[in-house]
C-alpha cells in the first residue's frame, strides 16, 4: 500500500515535472528573426525567447531579457517563428499514395463545399512529422485543387494526436479550382472554362437564395416568393414557412462564403483564369485568396487593385500544362507590385509526396525575394493571409510559443533544422 502510494506520488511528480518542462522553455539564438511588424525589432542578435505555458512572454536581447529559473534553454545559431505552410495537403494525402491514405479529392461530384478537412486530417501521417522536422509548425491543409469546389481546408499545428488537438481553424477556406485541373471529359460538367464559371455563379446564386429564405424564416416571415415562381403555397398546412429550416450543408457552407466569413481559395494558373476569378469576386463581393497563380505575374496590377493575396505554388513546381509559364521570380514580381504573397507546399501526386515550404521559399530567396521577404512568405505573411496572425507567424509576446531553430541561414541547402518547438513543447530535436 505504501509502495503504491509512493509510486503514485512519484508518477504525479514526474507528470507535473514533464508538463512543466514541456511548457517552460527559453530559446537563445545568435540571431533571432522575430518577423514582428513595425515597432518591434525584426532581427535580434543574441536574442532570447521566453515561452511560458505555451505562449511567448518575452522576446529580446539576452543582455536585457532575463531567463527565468528552471526553464529549459535551447540554443541555436538562428531562431525563426515556426514556419507556416500556406497551402498543402499533408495529413490529408498520406505518405503511401494508396487509396486508403488519399483523401484530398472526392471525385463523385464537382461541387462539394460541405466536405470538412478536419474529418480527413490524419495528424499521425509521417509526412506531418516530416514537415515538422524542418520547422513547419502551422499547416494549412485539406482538400486539394482538382474539382470546381473540392471541399474545405483547415489550419492545424503539426503536433497533436487528433485533429481536435491539432486544429487552429476548423474551416479556413473553401477550396475551388478553375481552369484545366477542374475540367471533366465526355459529357460530364464542367468541360470548359465558361461552364466552370457558369456553375460557380449558379451555386452562389442558389446559396444567396438559401440565405434569403433562411433569414426570412428566422424573422418569421412567410417565405417570399420570387415573381416568376410557380403558384405553390409558401406555407404548409400549419401555416409555417414551407421547408425553410431544411438544412443543406452545401448551402450553409456557401452562405458563409457569401457572407465573407470564410474566404474562397481559388486555384487558378493561367492569366485568363485569374481574370475569371476576379470577375467572380466583383459580382459576389467574395473574399478571395488566389491559390497557385502560375501566371499571376501577368495579373499583378489587377490583383493589387482587387486586394487579392496570392498563396503561390511551390517555387520548384514543374513547368508543364497550365504551369508551363511559371517563374522562379513570381513571388518577387508580385511583392514588387504590392501584392501580398505566401508560399505553399502544394499537392504532389507522386514523388516527392510533399514539398517543404522552407525549401520552396529558399529558391524564391535566391530569385529576387530578399531574405526577410522570403521568410515572411512562410511566416507572418502566410499567417496574415490565412487570418491566424494573432497566434502564429511572428515571435512576439502573447503569440503561441512556436519556434524553429537552425544551425545557419535557414535557406542555405547545407543548413540544418536543429529543433522545433510548438506551444512551448519541444517536438523535434533531430538534426535535419
Amino acid at each position, binding site marked *: 500500500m505504501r509502495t503504491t502510494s509512493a509510486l503514485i506520488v512519484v508518477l504525479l511528480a514526474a507528470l507535473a515535472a514533464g508538463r512543466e518542462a514541456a511548457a517552460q522553455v527559453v530559446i537563445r539564438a545568435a540571431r533571432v528573426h522575430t518577423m514582428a511588424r513595425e515597432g518591434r525589432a525584426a532581427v535580434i542578435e543574441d536574442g532570447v525567447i521566453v515561452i511560458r505555458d505555451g505562449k511567448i512572454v518575452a522576446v529580446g536581447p539576452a543582455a536585457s531579457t532575463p531567463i527565468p529559473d528552471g526553464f529549459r534553454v535551447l540554443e541555436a545559431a538562428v531562431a525563426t517563428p515556426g514556419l507556416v505552410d500556406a497551402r498543402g495537403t499533408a495529413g490529408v494525402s498520406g505518405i*503511401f499514395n494508396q487509396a486508403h491514405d488519399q483523401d484530398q479529392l472526392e471525385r463523385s461530384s464537382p461541387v462539394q463545399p460541405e466536405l470538412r478537412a478536419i474529418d480527413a486530417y490524419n495528424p499521425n501521417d509521417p509526412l506531418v512529422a516530416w514537415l515538422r522536422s524542418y520547422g513547419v509548425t502551422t499547416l494549412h491543409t485539406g482538400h486539394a485543387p482538382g474539382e470546381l469546389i473540392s471541399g474545405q481546408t483547415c489550419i492545424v499545428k503539426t503536433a497533436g494526436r487528433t485533429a481536435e488537438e491539432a486544429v487552429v481553424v476548423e474551416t479556413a477556406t473553401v477550396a475551388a479550382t478553375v481552369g484545366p485541373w477542374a475540367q471533366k471529359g465526355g459529357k460530364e460538367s464542367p468541360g470548359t472554362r465558361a461552364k466552370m464559371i457558369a456553375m460557380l455563379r449558379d451555386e452562389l446564386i442558389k446559396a444567396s437564395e438559401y440565405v434569403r429564405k433562411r433569414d426570412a424564416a428566422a424573422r418569421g416571415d412567410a417565405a417570399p416568393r420570387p415573381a416568376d415562381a410557380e403558384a405553390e403555397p409558401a406555407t404548409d398546412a400549419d401555416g409555417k414557412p414551407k421547408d425553410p429550416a431544411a438544412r443543406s450543408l452545401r448551402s450553409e457552407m456557401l452562405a458563409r462564403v457569401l457572407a465573407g466569413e470564410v474566404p474562397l481559395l481559388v486555384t487558378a494558373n493561367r492569366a485568363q483564369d485569374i481574370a475569371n476569378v476576379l470577375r467572380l469576386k466583383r459580382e459576389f463581393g467574395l473574399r478571395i485568396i488566389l491559390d497557385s497563380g502560375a501566371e499571376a505575374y501577368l495579373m499583378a496590377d489587377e490583383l493589387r487593385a482587387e486586394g487579392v493575396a496570392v498563396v503561390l505554388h511551390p517555387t520548384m513546381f514543374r513547368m508543364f500544362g497550365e504551369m508551363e509559364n511559371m517563374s522562379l521570380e513570381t513571388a518577387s514580381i508580385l511583392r514588387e507590385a504590392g501584392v501580398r504573397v505566401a508560399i505553399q507546399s502544394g499537392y504532389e501526386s507522386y514523388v516527392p509526396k510533399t514539398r517543404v515550404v522552407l525549401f520552396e521559399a529558399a529558391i524564391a530567396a*535566391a530569385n529576387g525575394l530578399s531574405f526577410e521577404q522570403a521568410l515572411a512568405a512562410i511566416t507572418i505573411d502566410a499567417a496574415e493571409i490565412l487570418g491566424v496572425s494573432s497566434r502564429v507567424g511572428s515571435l512576439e509576446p502573447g503569440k503561441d510559443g512556436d519556434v524553429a531553430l537552425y544551425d545557419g541561414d535557414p535557406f542555405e541547402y547545407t543548413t540544418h533544422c536543429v529543433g522545433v518547438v510548438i506551444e512551448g513543447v519541444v517536438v523535434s530535436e533531430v538534426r535535419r
Partner: protein
Amino acid sequence: MLKNVRAARQFLCLAAAAAFLAAGPAAAQESAVAIVDARIIPIVGDEIPRGTLVVRGGRIVAVGPSEDVAAPEGATVIDGRGKVVMPGLVDTHSHIGGVAGADGSAPIQPDVRMIDSINVRDPGFRRAVAGGLTTLNIMPGSGHLSSGQTVYAKMRPARSIEDVLIMDAAGRFMGGLKMANGTNPMGAPPFGGTRGKNAALVRDRFIKAQEYKRKRDKAEADGTPDKAPGRDLGLEAIAECLDGTRIIHHHTHRADDIMTVLRLQREFGFRVVLHHVSEAWKVADEIAAAGVPCSVIVVDSPGGKLEAAELSTESGGILERAGVKTAFHTDDWITDSRLFLRSAAMAVRAGMSREGALAALTIRGAEMLDLGDRVGSLEPGKDADFIILGGDPFSVYTKVEQTWVEGVRVFDRSVADDRLHAVGGYGAGDPMRPYMCCEGGESTFGFGGKQWEAR
C-alpha cells in the same frame, strides 16, 4: 574512271568525317578560350583557389594555378575573378525531350531505341544547360522490365538528335539499356503481376539472349556467317549487355528489389548501375560487396509510392561510407535539371562529404556511362565541358552563369532568352504533359484529370 572519281570522292568524304570525329566536337573553335583567375574545382586533383582553364578545339588544353598557366596569345579571355569553374554536370538519368520508349504491348522491349524518340527542341534541353548539365543519359520510363535503349547525349547546340550523340571508338552512338523492377513494371498480362514473375520473365529473356549470343559468337568464330541466328533487335541489345559493351541502368527502390538486381547480375554477369535506390541504406554493404555503382535520386520527402516510403535523404552519405561508387541524377521531371546542384548540396546536408558529392555530380556519373575518360573532370585532353558559377556550388544563392560544351558556350545567363529558360516566365515552358517515368495511370505528376487518382 568515273567509278574511281566516285570512289575518291567517297574516300574524301569519309576522311573528312573521320577527321571531324577525331577532332571531336562539331562547332569547337580553333582559337583558344581561357577562363582566368577563377576558383577551379577540377574534381580530379585539388581545388585551385586562383586558377586558369584553357580550352581549344573542343578540348581542355591546360588547367592549373594562374601562376603556372597563362592564357595563350589570341585567346578569348574570360575574367574568372569571383567565379567558380567546375566540370559540366553529368546526369545519369533524365527523361527530357518528350522521350518515350516501350509501348503497352509487352513488358520487355529492348529493341526500342530512344534515339528514335527524343525532341531536342524541347524546352527541357534549355533548362538542362541552364542547370549546368552537359552530359545526360536520356532514358525511357520504368513501367516496363525493359523499356528500351537509352541515349548518352552531349548538350551541344542541336537541330536533331544526331547532333547530341556521343560516339564510341567504333563509331557507334552510345547508350545503355533501361530496366526496372518493383511495382512500376507490374501490370496485367503480358506484364508480370508479382516480383517473382517479373524476375522469371527477365531471366527467361536473358537466357534466350545467352543462346543468341552463343550461336552468333560461334558462327563468327567458325567463319560460318550463314549459321548465325537471324537478327533479333531485342536479343541483340541484351547480348550487348552480356558482352559488357552496353550498361544496364536499373530502376530499383526497395532493398529486396535491389538484391534481386544483384542476384540477376551474378547470374548473367552484366554491368549494371542501380538507379534511385530509395532503400540502398539498408543494403549498402551488399551493394559495396557486389562492386555495383549507384545513382541516387535526392527528393524532398519520402513517399509517393510504397517503395519510396522508407527513402532516406542520408543514402548518398551512407553509400559513400560503405565504399559504393555513387552518383546523382535528376530523373527530370521528378527533379528539375536547373536545380541539379541542389541535389548534391542536399546530400551534403544529410551527411555526404563535399568532395564525394561534387564527384557524384561529375566524374562518378561519367564513369557510370563509360565516359570517365572523356568528361567529368577538368584535365588536359578531356572534352571542354565546364560551367561557370557565381559562387559556391552548394549555396542556394549561387547561379549557373555559363555552360560550355566542347568549347562552345551553350548557356549564358546574361542573354535574355537563356535567362528566360533558367528562371521561367511567359513562353518558357511546355504546354504538353511530360512523358512520365511510369505508365499505367498511377504515376503522373501534378493536378488535373485522372492524375489525382492513386492506384
